[in-house]
């Protein structure tokens, strides 16, 4: 089993798989995002309380979910690299960081633009907003730490450690609306029981989420190829791949 695991995580195998998957992920992401945008903007009914401002959720909610998902992926990859000394884990973590940071910026700005008409302010030091901002700082910290060392291996290890420590922030973001009094509304989809959202509004949201996931997969594959090439530049398989 371990032989299979190590073979699966071998750089040439991953490089080939990532190259093959990228166009598929991109094509499927375009379909899912296209459907989500058209259905969410043109066909989903306006919310009875928030009016058309609720349509911001079609960008805000998937980007917020992705910011947490990508961070968790990065921390797991870092842990795998540290525990089992699989170098590919560091490559995955390094590829995840800028994508996750960009999703976090999107979640924060769109949340702010939703907050202005709904709460009367662009920003409040609310537990959900503050913990999401800390997530952005963690992403920036992980990227900075990785590039702060001359020895790339030390930078990888330090970044992996920070990402593992910082993963404690992910459940804090998720449950902040339950644990503390929060301006932010509670969970409407990711909760036990039936989502408190009509299907006509829910389908475009789920389609957008799928589109965000597939897009993340595509960009991760591209960045992962680059990370693998950078780390394995002197390897024989890279020379063969470049020749072919």
């Amino acid at each position: 089993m371990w032989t299979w695991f190590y073979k699966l995580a071998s750089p040439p195998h991953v490089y080939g798989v990532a190259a093959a998957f990228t166009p598929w992920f991109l094509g499927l992401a375009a379909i899912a995002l296209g459907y989500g945008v058209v259905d969410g903007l043109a066909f989903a009914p306006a919310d009875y309380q928030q009016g058309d401002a609720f349509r911001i959720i079609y960008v805000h909610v998937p980007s917020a979910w992705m910011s947490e998902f990508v961070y968790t992926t990065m921390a797991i990859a870092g842990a795998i690299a540290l525990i089992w000394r699989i170098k590919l884990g560091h490559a995955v973590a390094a590829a995840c960081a800028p994508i996750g940071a960009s999703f976090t910026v999107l979640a924060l700005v769109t949340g702010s633009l939703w907050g202005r008409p709904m709460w009367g302010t662009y920003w409040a030091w609310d537990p959900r907003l503050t913990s999401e901002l800390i997530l952005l700082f963690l992403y920036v910290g992980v990227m900075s730490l990785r590039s702060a060392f001359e020895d790339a291996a030390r930078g990888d290890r330090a970044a992996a450690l920070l990402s593992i420590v910082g993963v404690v922030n992910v459940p804090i973001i998720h449950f902040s609306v339950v644990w503390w009094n929060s301006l932010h509304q509670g969970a409407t989809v990711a909760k036990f029981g039936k989502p408190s959202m009509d299907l006509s509004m829910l389908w475009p949201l789920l389609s957008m989420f799928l589109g965000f996931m597939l897009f993340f997969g595509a960009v991760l594959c591209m960045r992962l190829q680059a990370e693998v090439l950078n780390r394995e530049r002197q390897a024989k398989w890279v020379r063969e791949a470049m020749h072919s």
Partner: protein
Amino acid sequence: MGGYARYVWPCFGLATVIFAWNLWSARRYLAAARLRAARALIMAAGGES
């Protein structure tokens, strides 16, 4: 957009910008990595001859 257009459209606009930046930067990063690998190959070939 029921009076909320100035909040809704910038969100979708920013999402487009973020998606475009992700694609552009990933492609650029990959192209740079391929170039570095090709240079390393040329250097190695030069050293061998």
